[in-house]
């Protein structure tokens, strides 16, 4: 819409409003008296022999009309109603009202966030109210991958089992939330023959106490000690520097069945936790960290 059209519609509105108000007033004023000869006449409406009297309205009814007109005028002075250039003496707008409401909410909740942001996560994890806030943020933001109960899904770690890829200290948890993590298991398929692959699968199973073919596992161990130990460590307990999982605890990110272990070794895996620092802001990330920390560090009495 160009400027001229805008101006036309402005005046269109203004003129219509004024004509309406003045017209109503004039109509009310001019019709407040009727010819006396109408007295006691009916309106001429007859329903089943019942006639309708043309009785006068009470006088205060007329005053109500005048009051509504006065109300309109006051409204049009206070609020923007007469074209886009007149803003009204209250200078009200939807945007301003929204900003004001956001400001009010900030004033109300910011002190609470500030208070909690100053408390160390370990301590915050004992605070029922803070945990409640953290939980609500978690359920909104994190449930897609980790589940609303935090127990994860295949490929997305369980946050309740105190088994950590990247470390379970309060600082490490918060770092994971704020900066995200990317864990890469390269695919070893091309480097391994069938015996070596099967041996590795058997050995990895053995580490978690599965019943396996001991001979094959021995072959696997030799491969493990030359290749896999770099990330998963000599004892297979993993390394939180790379997010390499502990292979000895029978907790599986991508399933512990032989088929799936073989698939993981052959094709590799990539797990991404996106960075949430900018999405949540520090105060909320702090609360989520406290909630996640509390999932693995609950008091017995809270269970």
């Amino acid at each position, binding site marked *: 819409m160009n400027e001229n059209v805008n101006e036309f519609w402005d005046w269109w509105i203004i003129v219509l409003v004024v004509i309406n108000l003045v017209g109503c007033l004039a109509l009310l004023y001019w*019709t*407040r*008296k*009727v*010819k*006396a*000869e109408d*007295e006691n006449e009916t309106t001429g409406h007859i329903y089943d022999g019942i006639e309708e009297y043309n*009785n*006068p*309205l*009470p*006088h*205060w*009814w*007329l005053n109500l009309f005048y009051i509504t007109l006065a109300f309109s005028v006051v409204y049009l002075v206070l609020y923007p109603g007469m074209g886009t250039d007149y803003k009204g003496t209250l200078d009200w707008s939807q945007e301003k009202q929204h900003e004001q409401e956001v400001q009010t909410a900030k004033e109300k909740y910011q002190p609470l966030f500030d208070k909690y942001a100053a408390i160390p996560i370990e301590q915050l994890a004992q605070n029922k109210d803070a945990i409640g806030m953290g*939980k*609500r943020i978690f*359920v909104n933001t994190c*449930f*897609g*991958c980790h*589940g*609303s*109960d*935090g*127990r994860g*899904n*295949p490929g997305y770690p369980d946050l309740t089992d105190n088994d950590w890829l990247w470390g379970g200290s309060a600082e490490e948890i918060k770092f994971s939330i704020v900066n995200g993590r990317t864990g890469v298991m390269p695919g070893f398929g091309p480097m391994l023959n069938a015996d070596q692959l099967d041996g590795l699968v058997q050995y990895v199973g053995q580490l978690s106490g599965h019943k396996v073919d001991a001979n094959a596992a021995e072959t696997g161990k030799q491969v493990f000690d030359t290749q896999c130990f770099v990330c998963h460590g000599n004892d297979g307990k993993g390394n939180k520097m790379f997010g390499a999982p502990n292979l000895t605890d029978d907790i*599986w990110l991508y*399933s*512990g*069945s032989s088929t799936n272990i073989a698939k993981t070794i052959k094709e590799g895996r990539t797990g991404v936790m996106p960075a949430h620092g900018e999405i949540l802001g520090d105060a909320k990330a702090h609360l989520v960290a406290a909630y996640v920390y509390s999932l693995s560090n609950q008091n017995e009495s809270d*269970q």
Partner: protein
Amino acid sequence: MFSSRTQSVAFKDLYAKQRKIYPRQVHGIYARLRVVSVLLLLGFYYLMPWVTWDGHQAILFDLPARKFHLFSLTLWPQDFILLALLLVFSAVSLFMFTAFAGRLWCGYACPQTVWTETFLWIEHLVEGNRNQRMKLDKKPWGLEKTTKKFIKHFLWITFALFTGYTFVGYFTPIKELWTGMLQLSLGPWEWFWIGLYSLATYGNAGKLREQVCLYMCPYARFQSAMFDKDTLIIAYDNDRGDPRGKRKKDVDPKEKGLGDCIDCNQCVHVCPTGIDIRDGLQYECIACAACVDVCDNVMMQMNYDKGLIRYTSENAEAGSPSPLFRTRTLMYLGLFSLLIGVLVYLIASRIPLDVTVIKDRVTLYSESFDGKIENTFQLKVLNMSQQQQTYDVSVQGLDNITVKGQVKITVDSGEIQTLALRLAVPAESLKKQSNTIYFVIKNVNIDDQTHSIRAKFIGPNK
């Protein structure tokens, strides 16, 4: 059109000025009944907010928190059906009483009548009886008139303010409201509502009075739909009263060819809506029976029989049988009883617990490493009772279903707690892709407080 306005054509107002009515004070059985009714209703209204129950205000409509406290019952927005039923019930009872006894409500129980009665009583106290009031209004403004008017309006406004304050006291704890008022620390909306209801009381009961009944009240207009020829109405006995005429007390009216009506106009003077009941049944009549009382007094003085104006029905007046129980009233009675039954049943069987089940939808299901199918649910458990409660959650509907997560939860009164539960079933238990399950939430402390909610357990495509 204005050129036709000449001297010869007279004009009158399209809008009629309110004709001030000076109802005479009346004594008698029905007036006494109304006083009892006024005292009971206003007593209830003004005292009830001060009654406490279990440590809270017995009746409090807490709108910001969206909770209605009614003694040991707390109603939530989830109980809206009860409010709807209560309104239906109120409407039906109004219809029923109308069919039985006409405008019983108008004459004795309507707030408009009750407060107008009180305001009239104050007016009578300050300005005197009907004649004195009429004389006072005709007088030019002087010391006496100013003083009396000032005192009257002062009392009216004080009473109206107290009424407005009490009204808001049903929505905001009334004791805090009192201190807030004294310290001028109330919010703008509390002042607004106190002001509005004070103004409404003052305006309706002091100024508008019968105008409310005549022009604003919808009931006055549609009650005729509930009327039949057996409905109790107030009527003047034409056959007995006419022809009307003044006569000495010792004169035999028959000799003069007169009826029993001595045309003293007392029935008109006492009428709060300013009508003449002798003109027959009119929509303006609020059936307050003031004319019955005053006419009975006159008849007694004349040594005539009472009841020239009386409660009767069109059929009774015509000498036909006028049964109280007839199809119309029996049907209303049936509907009324049915609604009472439903309301009582709903309130008695109400479990003050609300649970919402939300299924995780990003992952419809997942396969656990031990070959089970898992679904994750959030249960939002709202304790609507006035005490802390502990609930136990179990799941039914599928074989060998197991629940991971906290299944016992303690929720404070009015609090919502969220349970996140992961359900697992062996893949072979799932016969279909979508399976109906039930979350059963049982109150650990109270028997028979069990809530069952249907949900869907999703598995792989079969």
